[in-house]
């Protein structure tokens, strides 16, 4: 039911990517349908982050095809890709030290109508409202993650690329991020998530891809999860 490639919001096929001399992605093929939460799983170094960065156009060199809403973006600049309606939340969060919380929040320009308002973002992350005048990097790790997610919700982008949003966070914050992702899905956002925390991913994802050595080696829906646990253990070593 989920395997229709044509008509997907994001279609990635035979994606290859390099950082300088090192060849990281060796022909990754995957797709994300509108309204889905899809999780990329895999060991460290499997190419998950590079896949997100390649979609965003911020790797050294890439070939293959990245189509968003049917439009080919493989040769587009990263600013053009963002303007097409894709937003990226990096693993290191990318909160700017020389900007206060409000400036960080308002930084990404609107690329389309229909983004969340400031109030809606504060409803999701009430902590941010209290800290608007603080220096961005003075926030706790959890608050920085909320800010990093919050600021891309304003832009009107409908596809969110989230790179390990739970990394290094306390369980209660992880829960809050999980709730947020479910709410965003209800509101019609499409999310491509990279996660090491499989337990967390299983609470939000509709579908999974497993990556190894820069390729997709397995995919299954959340409903098949119990049958696939052995496969997962094998690939992830968890």
């Amino acid at each position, binding site marked *: 039911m989920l395997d229709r490639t044509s008509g997907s919001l994001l279609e990635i096929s035979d994606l290859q990517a390099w950082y300088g001399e090192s060849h990281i992605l060796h022909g990754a093929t995957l797709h994300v349908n509108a309204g889905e939460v899809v999780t990329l799983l895999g060991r460290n170094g499997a190419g998950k982050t590079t896949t997100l960065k390649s979609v965003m156009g911020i790797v050294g060199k890439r070939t293959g095809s990245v189509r968003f809403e049917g439009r080919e973006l493989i040769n587009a600049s990263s*600013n053009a*890709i*963002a303007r097409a309606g894709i937003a990226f939340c990096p693993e290191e969060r990318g909160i700017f030290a020389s900007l206060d919380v409000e*400036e960080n929040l308002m930084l990404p320009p609107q690329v389309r109508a229909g983004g969340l308002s400031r109030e809606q973002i504060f409803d999701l992350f009430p902590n941010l409202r209290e800290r608007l005048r603080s220096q961005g990097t003075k926030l706790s790790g959890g608050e920085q993650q909320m800010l990093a997610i919050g600021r891309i919700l304003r832009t009107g982008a409908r596809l969110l690329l989230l790179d390990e949003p739970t990394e290094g966070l306390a369980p209660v914050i992880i829960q809050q991020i999980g709730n947020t992702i479910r709410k965003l899905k209800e509101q019609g956002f499409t999310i491509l998530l990279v996660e090491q925390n499989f337990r967390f991913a299983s609470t939000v994802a509709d579908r999974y891809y497993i990556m190894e050595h820069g390729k997709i080696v397995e995919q299954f829906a959340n409903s098949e999860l119990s049958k696939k646990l052995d496969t997962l253990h094998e690939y992830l070593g968890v």
Partner: protein
Amino acid sequence: MIFDLLGVPPQALFGQLLLGLINGSFYALLSLGLAVIFGMLNIINFAHGAQYMLGAFCAYFLLQFAGINYWLALIIAPIVVGAFGIVLERLFLKHLYKLDHLYGLLLTFGIALILEGIFRRYFGSSGIPYSPPQLLTGGYNLGFMYLPKYRAWVVICSLTVCLLTWFMIEKTRLGAYLRAATENPTLVRAFGINVPRMITLTYGFGVGLAALAGVMAAPIYNVSPQMGASLIIVVFAVVVIGGMGSIMGAIVTGFSLGIIEGLTKVFFPQASNTVIFVIMVIVLLTRPAGLFGRTT
């Protein structure tokens, strides 16, 4: 009175203080441009002095060949020279961002030598006078000193431009883009902002500031091919003292060092040419990142 205690006539003291403020105005404007360029492009713009000289010559050409007066030159020269900066950035500088600072420094140093050489070939090194505008000739007798109108204007104009630039960078949305792109250009670009274009315009703006300083300097120092070369060495010392990349640091340090230099002329004239470099040595020994610099 305190002046008797110090053994210095007030006329001399205030005179040198004003001279210090004037020099400080140029130090501040020029080091501000250098700081803006360095922050965004990671390039030490050694051509800054030559671009300041271009600003002065541009004002001179406008007056000589087109009859365009000082006030219009104040606007036109920074645009013309800034556009020339944009061409330089597109043709040469953009290839250097991923390389060591040394490459940018060598390239801009070469550009400075070429520009100054060309102008020396055609205009010699004696300098061409440029009259201050009618409106700003004469001065005020303040009782304790005589204040030439043009010099007062230079201080006020420089201070205003410096503070406006600071405001734009630290307090506006555009400035937030600039600060963010200084920290992490890749991510800012991935938010949909055309960072390469912003870098080009920033260089044009920094060069425009140098040209503006050049126009303002023309009635004070004469228009000469060397005018930038002699100033830029001091300005680099100012930038080192203030710390590369700090906007307010560049402004405050520029004005303060001008004043300190002026006061040194009064109290210990022998040291007036070296005082800035002595301060630079002390700052480098105690705070290598500069007084306002962020250690990264």
